[in-house]
């Protein structure tokens, strides 16, 4: 799938800045979680993409949201993207950055969605299980998503392993 060169450019720039700052893993993880929050919140998405709101105001929203909860590098990177009017492309830029970061470590991004948070032990065993199942070392990214109801859905590249209650319930409804 071809990607917009500008999105690739931003992803590469963010990746290089985070690596230069020496906090790639942390920044990558924070950006990933911010991207998922951005996708799930209409209010946040509208606030950061509304052209009627001045760029400085949008950047202030980002700093209010992330200040004290994320590293200053993460906050500045998101603020820069939003301030340059690329708020709509934020998830795509971050996903590309995460993929690039994982690739630099010979890892494949594994996006995992669960209804409740996973413990460190569960994350480690799940990463091992996914590596065993796909034959690739994975960079696990956990998203807490109550809409899955229960269980886990894991996406590694084009492979989707779905063990959620939501999917089983949908299948049951479809059968009914």
């Amino acid at each position, binding site marked *: 799938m071809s990607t917009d060169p500008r999105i690739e450019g931003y992803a590469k720039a963010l990746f290089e800045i985070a690596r230069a700052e020496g906090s790639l893993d942390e920044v990558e993880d924070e950006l990933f979680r911010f991207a998922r929050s951005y996708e799930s919140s209409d209010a946040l998405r509208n606030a950061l993409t509304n052209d009627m709101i001045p760029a400085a105001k949008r950047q202030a929203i980002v700093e209010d949201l992330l200040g004290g909860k994320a590293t200053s590098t993460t906050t500045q990177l998101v603020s820069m993207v939003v301030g340059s009017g690329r708020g709509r492309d934020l998830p795509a830029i971050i996903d590309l950055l995460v993929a690039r970061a994982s690739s630099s470590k010979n890892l494949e991004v594994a996006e995992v969605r669960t209804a*409740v948070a996973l413990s460190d032990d569960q994350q480690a*065993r*799940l990463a091992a*299980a996914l590596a065993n199942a796909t034959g690739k070392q994975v960079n696990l990214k956990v998203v807490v998503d109550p809409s899955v*109801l229960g*269980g*886990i859905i894991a996406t590694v590249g084009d492979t989707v*392993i779905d063990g959620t*209650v939501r999917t089983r319930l949908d299948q049951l409804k479809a059968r009914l």
Partner: protein
Amino acid sequence: MSLVTAALVQIGHFVAAGDEVVVDSEGIVTHSSILPEVAEIIYGGLASVIIFGLIIKFAGPAMKKGLADRTSKIQKELDSAAEDKAAATSEAASIRQAKGDINAERARLLADADAQAEAMVADFHTRLDVEVEELRARAAADINTARTRGSDELRAEITRLSSTAADRAVAESIDDATHQDLIESFIAKVGASA
């Protein structure tokens, strides 16, 4: 005494009263205040005869011609009146004939109109029957569609409500232990799938 006799007596008295001889200041004698003198009667009578003769001789032909022309004119007017009468009679006859034709034409037109009206009524009834049948069929189809749609909508609503209820019931029934069981089960299953 009759009235005639009385009148003659009165005339006699009047004439007798006129026979009194009168002599004027110049010596001229008048024998009667009513009757002219004898000589005057003779001369006047002769003059009258001569005048009448001259009138008959010279004015007679013109008068005769005028009378003849007037007779001829009156005859022509009579002839013209007769011709006009004949023409009027002929015209009246033709009018009566035309009236008869008009009556026949009117009767024919009325008959045609009646026939056309009957045909139109028959055609109208036929089309009305067809339209009523179409309306009935359409109404039946509409009722059937509405019934099906109502049934579908009801089914969809039931499905939506039951889906929401199922989501809520499932979400509430999954406690933390179940979540952990599901997660562990998934990890074990994925780990064993290689």
